């Protein structure tokens, strides 16, 4: 099955060297980052040409300030910078690109909502419809807006991989704040959704894909109660969810946490037979990474 997925990635590579979210779409930073990691995990010289073409595309997309745009079509600076950085750390000739991207990430801060909300959070949190710590700064989807779990997790993984090449005190503090933010957004029974554990007093459920991503970002703290609770929550959620995307992330997470993920690999194959992962490049790439034990690309 892995060979079939790799063939799909090769077939779906755009002429410019990048990958679209699905075949036929403009090359997309996120999809290309995952496709490159997947092909690289095969460690096959046969794939070298495709990988080099993909790397050239990704390298050329980088903006002068170090960031990446969302795609070859939508040029505004984007959260997908963290994924480009993460991918390029696996390719030594592109290390400087990754480093420049990481420096851009260090300059980005999710915005806090203002003094009124800070005061309310401190003195009367029960009056807030959403009780998130407004003082924590992570990373946002859109520059100059609120922080959320997924972009913060991507930035954390990318920065942790490059932390020893970045200004020590700054990167340490940003990582500390980002981790605090992710923990602050955790659902009460463990796990994460996009970033709201409660709204209007009602608990919101975690999502398995985001839970796996957040756990990967917090992998150095695997013995912490919150991580263990979330790991259990992930296993619980996987009884219901059988999609390539979620299972791919989960296998990578379990691998990093030293857990056996064999049963989930089998489910990835079942999922592909059922849906072809909706032809989504990222899901195909995550499936390859799951089967090739590509978790090293996410190890910090």
């Amino acid at each position, binding site marked *: 099955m892995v060979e079939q997925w790799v063939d799909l990635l090769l077939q779906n590579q755009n002429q410019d060297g990048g990958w679209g979210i699905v075949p036929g779409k403009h090359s997309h930073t996120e999809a290309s980052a995952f496709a490159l990691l997947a092909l690289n995990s095969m460690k096959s010289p046969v794939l070298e040409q495709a990988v080099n073409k993909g790397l050239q595309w990704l390298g050329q997309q980088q903006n002068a300030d170090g960031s990446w745009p969302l795609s070859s079509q939508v040029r505004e600076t984007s959260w997908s910078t963290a994924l480009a950085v993460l991918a390029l750390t696996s390719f030594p000739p592109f290390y400087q690109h990754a480093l420049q991207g990481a420096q851009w990430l260090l300059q980005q801060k999710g915005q806090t909502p203002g003094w009124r909300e800070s005061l309310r959070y401190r003195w009367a949190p029960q009056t807030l*419809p959403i009780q998130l710590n407004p003082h924590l700064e992570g990373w946002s989807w859109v520059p100059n807006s609120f922080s959320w779990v997924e972009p913060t997790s991507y930035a954390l993984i990318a920065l942790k991989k490059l932390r020893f090449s970045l200004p020590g005190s700054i990167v340490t503090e940003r990582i500390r704040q980002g981790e605090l933010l992710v923990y602050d957004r955790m659902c009460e029974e463990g796990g994460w959704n996009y970033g709201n554990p409660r709204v209007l007093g009602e608990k919101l459920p975690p999502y398995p894909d985001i839970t796996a991503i957040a756990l990967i970002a917090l992998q150095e703290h695997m013995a912490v109660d919150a991580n263990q609770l979330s790991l259990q929550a992930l296993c619980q959620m996987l009884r219901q969810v059988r999609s390539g995307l979620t299972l791919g992330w989960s296998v990578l997470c379990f691998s990093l946490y030293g857990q056996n993920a064999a049963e989930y690999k089998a489910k990835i194959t079942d999922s592909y037979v059922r849906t072809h992962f*909706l032809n989504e490049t990222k899901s195909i790439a995550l499936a390859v990474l799951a089967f090739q034990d590509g978790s090293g690309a996410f190890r910090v």
Partner: protein
Amino acid sequence: MFTRRQFVAGSLATVMTPLLKGCSQPQSEPPRWEQGAYRKSEQSKVAILKATSYDNSLKDIILRAINLFPLDIKGKTIILKPNLVEYDPAGVINTHPAVIAATIDALRSLDAREVIVAEGPGHRRDNEYLLTASGLHAVLQEYRAQYVDLDNDDAQAIPVNSYFTGFPRFYFPETVLKADLLVSLPKLKTHHWAGVTLSMKNLFGLIPSAIYGWPKNILHWAGIPNSIVDINSALSIPRFAIIDGIVGMEGNGPIQGQAKHCGVLIFGDDFAAVDATATRIMTLDPRKVDYLVFADRFFGNILEENVLQLGERIETVRQDFTVIPSFRHLKSIVS
């Protein structure tokens, strides 16, 4: 797209979550829309047809309704935009797959060239899960219909023609921009930030989350009613609405509310008028829903005297939908 100044202004003006911004503006203020954005007609038509369950009769009901409107379907590429924001096996969050299936079937029987189902889920990124769990994937397979993830579609920036959010433009998915007709297929639901979520609010799902984030929080910060109006106004393609009101949601919608059987489908080509009628069916006052009031100023009709009601009368199908305390004021009339 979104400047620091806009964000800070938003943060000072609102709490951590969206709050409704005032809908009235002093007459001395400049108009908040361009002349070309004005498309309000003297009268709009809305049809309410009974549909007691999600059974095989839905296609015929939809065909009967479409015949009441001057809709040109033959040879057209049509986007069906259901509500698929999230999935909860115990909930009624999404447009029922049977309604989507019946709409595909009905439009194809009228010789539509292509019917594409498209959505940009606001919370979840796992499309495969959402589609399979919700039952939509089975429908797509049965009807061999294409699905497009609008959150990640190729996108183009379109200038706004109204100025409620202050955004100069919105990115819209190319799949939508290239279509001949957009059919909004929402669920009849209350909404804990906007009061109600119907065919106009459903267009939030057109806005690509890859650009605006999951959830599309930028739109919340700009004011949900403001965003609804600017998005609906900016999009110029012909449109039609079919609201799944067979089983709606009351209380803490759009995710955590309770199922409410209402037994209707609601149709029309003026989204504001359709949503106003749907709101009345929920025993809520559309004249107190901010974005409907905004829409009534320049691109739709929400007053009963300006809406020609076809099919069932509102009084015969009305259900008493509960709302959360912050929207109790919506319950205080119903003319």
